[in-house]
């Protein structure tokens, strides 16, 4: 090959340790899992020239899905299809299955990974809201360190996240809910063929005997510049009795809490309004 085209270099490593060492290089290569997001840019030659680190054949990252006593662990290369095919999710933590199914094409579900979806940090990511709603934690490893971060603390702006270029996700840990929760996942738009305007709401709540909200998670995709867990509205709801009055308060507060993106295809006004309507639908469905 002529040298002027050697600007794209893909490094493949046989082990996690070697991959993490490769990430210590300057500049650090860009890690790549299933490649379903990155390859798009590579094909159009829109990726910056440089090196890419292929993770897909690293055995330590290919440990599949482990169901343990009180948690589920996704190894880093767990794909959407792995979740679709796993019997456990047919009846448990069904939002994960739901999210896996709405990811575009079958040929993408077989290659696209949950971890890659997290790192790509698209505000419209399908998998991230479902993970966030279950309080997923990600384990980030570098050659010299390993740490856990709560997914809902991971993002802080458009494609901005708490990750150094030397780190990769090695696993995703999801605590198994201990209560029988009311769950909700809805994507306005893409599913049933409309991509023009998308709003995703993933929600989870549990009530006690007095209809008091014991736990609540409200996560939006495609509304804010990153997948967003609405802490303020959750706070308002937590510990209170779920009734129409409270729902109206929550709907009103979420309208203020969200600062929706305004783009050519969907106005902020529409996004906010639909986000409110979905929250109302979610909460009413738990009454």
């Amino acid at each position: 090959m002529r040298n002027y085209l050697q600007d794209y270099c893909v490094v493949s490593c046989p082990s996690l340790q070697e991959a993490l060492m490769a990430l210590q290089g300057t500049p650090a290569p860009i890690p790549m899992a299933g490649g379903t997001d990155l390859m798009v840019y590579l094909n159009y030659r829109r990726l910056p020239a440089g090196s890419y680190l292929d993770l897909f054949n690293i055995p330590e990252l290919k440990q599949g899905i482990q169901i343990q006593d009180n948690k589920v662990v996704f190894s880093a290369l767990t794909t959407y299809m792995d979740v679709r095919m796993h019997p456990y999710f047919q009846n448990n933590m069904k939002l994960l299955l739901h999210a896996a199914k709405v990811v575009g094409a079958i040929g993408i579900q077989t290659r696209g990974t949950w971890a890659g979806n997290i790192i790509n940090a698209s505000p419209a990511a399908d998998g991230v809201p479902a993970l966030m709603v279950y309080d997923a934690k990600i384990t980030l490893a570098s050659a010299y360190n390993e740490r856990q971060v709560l997914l809902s603390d991971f993002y802080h702006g458009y494609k901005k996240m708490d990750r150094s270029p030397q780190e990769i996700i090695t696993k995703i840990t999801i605590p198994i809910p201990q209560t029988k929760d009311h769950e909700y996942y809805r994507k306005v738009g893409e599913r049933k063929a409309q991509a023009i305007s998308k709003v995703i709401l993933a929600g989870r709540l549990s009530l006690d005997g007095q209809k008091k909200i014991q736990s609540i998670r409200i996560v939006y995709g495609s509304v804010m510049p990153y997948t967003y867990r609405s802490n303020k509205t959750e706070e308002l709801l937590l510990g209170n009795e779920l009734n129409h009055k409270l729902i109206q308060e929550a709907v009103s507060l979420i309208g203020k809490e969200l600062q929706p993106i305004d783009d050519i295809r969907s106005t902020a006004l529409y996004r906010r309004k639909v986000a409110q309507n979905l929250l109302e639908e979610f909460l009413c469905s738990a009454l």
Partner: protein
Amino acid sequence: MQIHLTINNEPKVFECQPWETLLRVLRREGYYSVRYGSDTGETGASAILLNGKVVNSDILLASQADSSIIETIEGLSKGIDLHPIQEAFLRHGAIQSGYSTPATILAAKALLQRNPNPTEKEIREAIAGVLDRETGYVKIVSAILDAAAAMRGEKTANLPLLQIIQADSKANDFVQEKAVVNRPEKKVDGMKLVKGNAAFVDDIELKGLLHAKLVTSPHAHARILDIDDSKVREYPGVRAVIHYKNIPRVRYASGGQSYPNPKPYDQVCFDNKVRYVGDRVAAIAADTLEIAQEAMKLLVVQYEVLPAVFDENQACAPGVPVIHDEPDMADAYDASKNISHRIHAKSGNTEIGFAQADFVFEHTYKVHQVQQCPIEPHIAISYWDEDERLVIRTSTQVPFHVRRMVAPLLGLPLKRIRVIKPRIGGGFGVKQEMLIEDIVGHLTIATRKPVRLEFNREEEFRSSRSRHPQTITYKTGVSKEGKLVSQKMTVIGNTGAYATHGLTVQTVTGLRGLSTYNCPNKEFDCKVVYTNIPVPGAYRGYGGPQAFLALESHMEEIAHALGIEVAEFKKKNCVKSGDPLDIAPHLGEREDPNPFIPKIASCALQQCLEEGMKRSQWHRRYDESWRNIPGKPYLKRGLGMALCMHGSAIPGLDMGGAFIKINDDGSFNLLVGATDLGTGSDTILAQIAAEVLGVPTENILVYSSDTDLTPFDTGAYASSTTYVSGNAVKLAAEKVKLQIQQRAALLLGISHPEEIVLKEQKAIALDGRFVPFDKIALHSLHEYDQQQIMATASFVAQASPPPFAAQFAEIEIDTQTGQVTVKKLLMVVDCGVAINPVTATGQIEGGMVQALGYGHCEEMVYDDKGRMVNTELGPYKIYQANEMPEMEVVLIQTVEETGPFGAKAAGEIPKDGVAPAIGSAIYNATGVRIREIPYTPQKVWQALQKAEKI
């Protein structure tokens, strides 16, 4: 680097670059069934099985697949013994162009391996990743269900569900006596497609092939002050770069139409001005695609950016930039006002009509721009052959037009050009254009090497063709009794930067918009304007879908205002057999000094409507308890309807030729210029010949089309192939039949050859004695008074008998989000006698899905600089298999006397009714009329909000 793979059970070692996709490596190694459709995994055309799982090879690095087990369709069957899934696909007509068929079959295979007894839903989920722009998925799903049963060992030889009703006893008798016509024959070209054989433009290997890239404009409107290509030329591996400075300026119009192409000729190969984002600036040929891509970045273009205009309603406003201000511009209606054409036609006098009417209604509708999205994008390969003639192998619907149109641009005499159309991976009108053939031609002339240019998906969106946006106003006068008295249609059509099909599409809008309902006074007034959007062109339906959205919505609005039930109102006014097509002579493609007013012959429109009302349970439209969903006040149901009418060919213009000859074994070659773009035309033309000649369809070997080998044909457009080329084939077959009868008479010693019947590959005399066709062939070719039994014939359309249909749509709407969910589409169609009911219903199902996209979710979206923002399939949304509504198609067969074996066209009419039927259903559900498509959530929601405030 080296990768080790096991492909179809064979160990392989390939050399590849670390950044190369598996798609590219597999194709380089000859696995041509793995096909390019996108760079994003969105089309699924590149799907393979990687370790048993469906994976898109366009977004997989070859290096990532190292040590894997790969299956492609090449490994599925040997020779002509097919895998049960392939067999079922053939039997069910699950293949149209066949471009993505290998990927779909592999997805089905992976499913059936893990689940031998899948439900329809599971099948739809499993193939959801492979986009199909052609079949509507109906026959694919039924084929997979059938294959699953066969693989479980159950006895099946099922066919897809066909619902056919004979309009009358004449139709009933007519089809009874047919042997192969009106029968669900297997596609004659199905074998190569179902096996994924090398059949498409890109499926060849040429030594020294260069790869071309087109440099396009980033600006919607700009003058090119200078181009400096010196750095490009210095770049190692670049072989040629062409632009306005080194290519002769020859004016032309790119629409693939009959000679002489409609004016104005407002294009040149490369101009010193660009008129839309995606317009041609330069082209580069290089040793590899990557070199060409890199070299593009080195071209220095100095632009003077000009203000731009995008909306057709703004195009003629004072102070708007003149898009065609070049000094050699001629023949536009008024280029200084951005008007390419004015079209005016009338029958009767609408002014008097409005004065006579008891009520007058006027409404304005707006239709948007969508793209054809064939899964195979534009691709052309050119090379010099051994006779120093330029061969262009191209994915086109119009090979003969391309040859004629490209010759003056290349400066070559026509006789030095040969255009070959191999299989095409879908066209839908976007390939009725001479779009890139001149570029590869110029580059081959410049380099003397073979050159390949393929659009990627983004280029296909930005730089090919699309559907014309229009603003349509109807003004209609009605009598107290609810009869139309006067109707005027005013249209502003947006032809983008170049006029190409601008005149003819807008003319057809008028023709379609003013033909379905009887009215003594009709008028069409149209302005076609230039803007700076990417160029609209021909798209299946050709101006019809625009017209019907407006017409059918408008008619419904009138019915509601008058308090007449909408179906009753339409029935009262719609055309029937014997009614005049009074606007048609004024909206033909050629001026006719003595216009003849044609009359409608076969017509089952009323029957279509009644049958549809029965099947859709039309009474539910007026049933509150059905429209409301208990416990979900924000969800509403609605049922809607639209009538449709199309044409079959352009009368006086469309011509097709056919050539048939006998072979030693009594089989026949049928050579036609007609271009099968997945429509099944090769098959129905074979059926027509087989019916006349008394042979099974598989004894007709079809070849289409090659300007050196096949007779002329205007091409695959205007719903003309069945009607025009079909008649040509029938005439040629009848001539061959005569020669066979004569030869048989000679052999049998009979003096009246016309009494001999051709049946079951035999020429049978009245007394029962017969000669088999192989004897006739051998006798005539080798034994006595030798002659080649052969004949040619051509047919030019004198009429354009309209097919008719009633389209129904059932929806659910969420008023909180504006999301419309289409639950069911039902279409009842009169397309005459369906030569092949499987391919005909396949056309209708597939057409309805495109029409559904048009009305519901497909949309070319731009930023304020005129840059299209959703140039990927995904953000540009095409329905997947698992998102489809239920689909039902019913044929009501009439016998069209002028058609071949009673046939009319079926290809375009399914594009007409879906959008207005959805609009009608939304109105039914919510009481809100939305006069603009597509019915996307935000638009619907906003309309509902607005209505609430009033």
